[in-house]
């Protein structure tokens, strides 16, 4: 229990740090984001004093209100779930935009990452178990793939499988010409799957190599441990040795690496959505940047951070379950 509390505590601190960063950055940067935003908003319609106040609370002005009281106001607004109004998607609120785009990202990126991890660790386990076997031949290929920058690989695959051999659609999350919006029909779902396969494929192909290599190296290390010799001497079935003795110990660093990589997953998602014009939260962020929609930008940053922190916490707890020593250490 102490373990859980300690971990949760850390993430609360991290969240607080993220919120504070979000608060400080617009106030530290040169230029006046408030004016920019207001002028953008004005093009869409009259700006009420309430809106002006809200934006000032969010982005800061050089009024007499002290930094501290601005900070408190900012946190209060957040606590009410008020993220402001979006400029790029006017008149939709930021919360609404995020609500519409987040599921796409979580679905595509989350699923692909998990598949990639499981596949990579599985392959790595086999490669490490049978040293000097044919699976080892995959290793140099995996190394090469690992160094290929993700977005270039995505472009390449898009080119090959979208243009040269038109197997997959070139963009979007679903067929925008047929469907006006999400609907609970099988046709829609299959369109989603069809459109999501290529982006998912690029994610899996680019990251599976890393997991495989890491797991393989750890398997090789673990197989040299004393308790593996004990397991063999006990005459246990190879299957039991491989899973309960070798893999379960070898996967630990990969698992903690997975937690770290979640941050990169999010970064990757932004690029994926850019390349494939996928309607996720990364696209929203980019659109926000391009139209100086600071409210949306801050909102997206917050949500992304929250997701990453949450996922990290989950993985940390999972790690604690698999490796009983961590619970004792804390």
């Amino acid at each position, binding site marked *: 229990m102490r373990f859980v509390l300690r971990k949760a505590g850390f993430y609360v601190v991290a969240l607080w740090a993220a919120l504070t960063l979000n608060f400080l950055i617009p106030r530290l940067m040169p230029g006046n984001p408030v004016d920019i935003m207001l002028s953008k908003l004005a093009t869409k319609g009259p700006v009420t004093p309430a809106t002006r106040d809200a934006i000032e609370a969010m982005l800061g002005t050089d009024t007499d209100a002290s930094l501290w009281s601005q900070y408190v106001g900012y946190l209060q607004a957040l606590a009410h779930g008020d993220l402001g109004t979006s400029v790029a998607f006017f008149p939709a609120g930021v919360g609404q935009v995020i609500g519409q785009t987040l599921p796409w990202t979580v679905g595509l990126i989350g699923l692909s990452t998990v598949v990639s991890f499981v596949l990579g660790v599985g392959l790595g386990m086999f490669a490490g178990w049978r040293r000097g076997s044919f699976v080892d031949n995959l290793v140099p290929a995996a190394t090469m793939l690992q160094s290929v920058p993700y977005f270039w690989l995505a472009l390449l695959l898009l080119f090959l499988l979208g243009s040269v051999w038109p197997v997959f659609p070139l963009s979007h999350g679903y067929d925008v010409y047929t469907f006006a919006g999400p609907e609970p029909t099988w046709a829609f779902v299959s369109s989603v799957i069809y459109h999501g396969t290529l982006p998912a494929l690029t994610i899996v192909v680019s990251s599976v190599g890393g997991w495989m290599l890491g797991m393989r190296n750890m398997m090789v290390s673990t197989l040299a*441990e*004393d*308790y593996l*010799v*004990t*397991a*063999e*001497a*006990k*005459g*246990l*079935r190879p299957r*039991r040795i491989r899973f*309960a*003795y070798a893999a*379960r*110990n070898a996967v630990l660093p990969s698992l903690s690496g997975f937690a770290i990589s979640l941050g990169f997953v999010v970064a990757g998602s932004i690029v994926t959505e850019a390349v494939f014009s996928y309607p996720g939260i990364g696209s929203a962020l980019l659109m926000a940047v391009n139209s100086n929609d600071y409210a949306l930008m801050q909102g997206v940053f917050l949500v992304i951070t929250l997701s990453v922190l949450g996922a990290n916490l989950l993985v940390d707890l999972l790690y604690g379950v*698999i*490796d*009983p*020593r961590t619970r*004792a250490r804390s």
Partner: protein
Amino acid sequence: MTATTAGRPVVGTHPVLEIEDFSVTYLVDPPVPAVQHVDLVLRRGEILGLAGESGCGKSTLAYGVTRLLKPPAAITSGRALFHSREGYAVDLSSLHGEDLRAFRWDKVAMVFQGAMNSLNPVLTIRSQLEDVFTTHRPQMSRAERRARCGELLERVGVDAARLGAYPHELSGGMRQRVMIAMALALEPQVLVMDEPTTALDVVVQREILREITRLRAELGFAVVFITHDLPLLLEISDRIAVMRAGRIVEQADAVTLYTDPQHPYTRRLLASFPSLTGDRGDFVRASDADLADELLEETVQVVADDDPAAGTSEEETA
């Protein structure tokens, strides 16, 4: 140091393990011979001590006999013959795959050095004890397995409540006891112990040794006890083999080895341990004038006990 006179169980003359002309070489470039042409006989129910300094090949011999060697080590000559209680003999190098796996632990079990790392850190003690049964005795019911594991722990002096613990929660001494319990799970006929007490403090060491001798008396298994600690072997073994540079230089029963060592290396080994009696500083000042290096080049295997095949009556070593 006196050989104990506590009653030793009757040691049979029939061999349970015969090692003939056994050699293990590390097949690298150039090849490194680790064990060279070793002949050793382990009799039923006896404790055979295998002594020697680090790197002399005693562990390699044990791993070779039990087929646990890793490449590039390989058995380059000889064989190990196991004579089962039921009357048949098995050439250990002829076992492969499923047969080898089934043989392991059931007839010959091992206790390794440094139980710090010999237990799987992520599994409970219960899980590690039970998987021996699920593998080798699949017909046992769950309740029987549980009960048996509890029994095993109690027998080595560990509270059965510790079954749910993880290895890192136990002390060194307890872990070693768990290893011993695990080794005895299937009631093997031979127990190979590789430096089982080296990493423990002397008090715990003594307790562990008492457990071993007590269990041996109860269950009647034979033990190959590998260690560099010769005085320890003098205490508990029936016979001792001294190993050096991959060869057995002397084999004799414990008392004879202590009172009348034949080989210069054995004498040197014995002289290398400080005595609890005598004047202070004797040990450090002792010269090896009479242990000239030329003598140490001799690698003649001196066997001082009777040839078991000659069928002498059972000895009582006292």
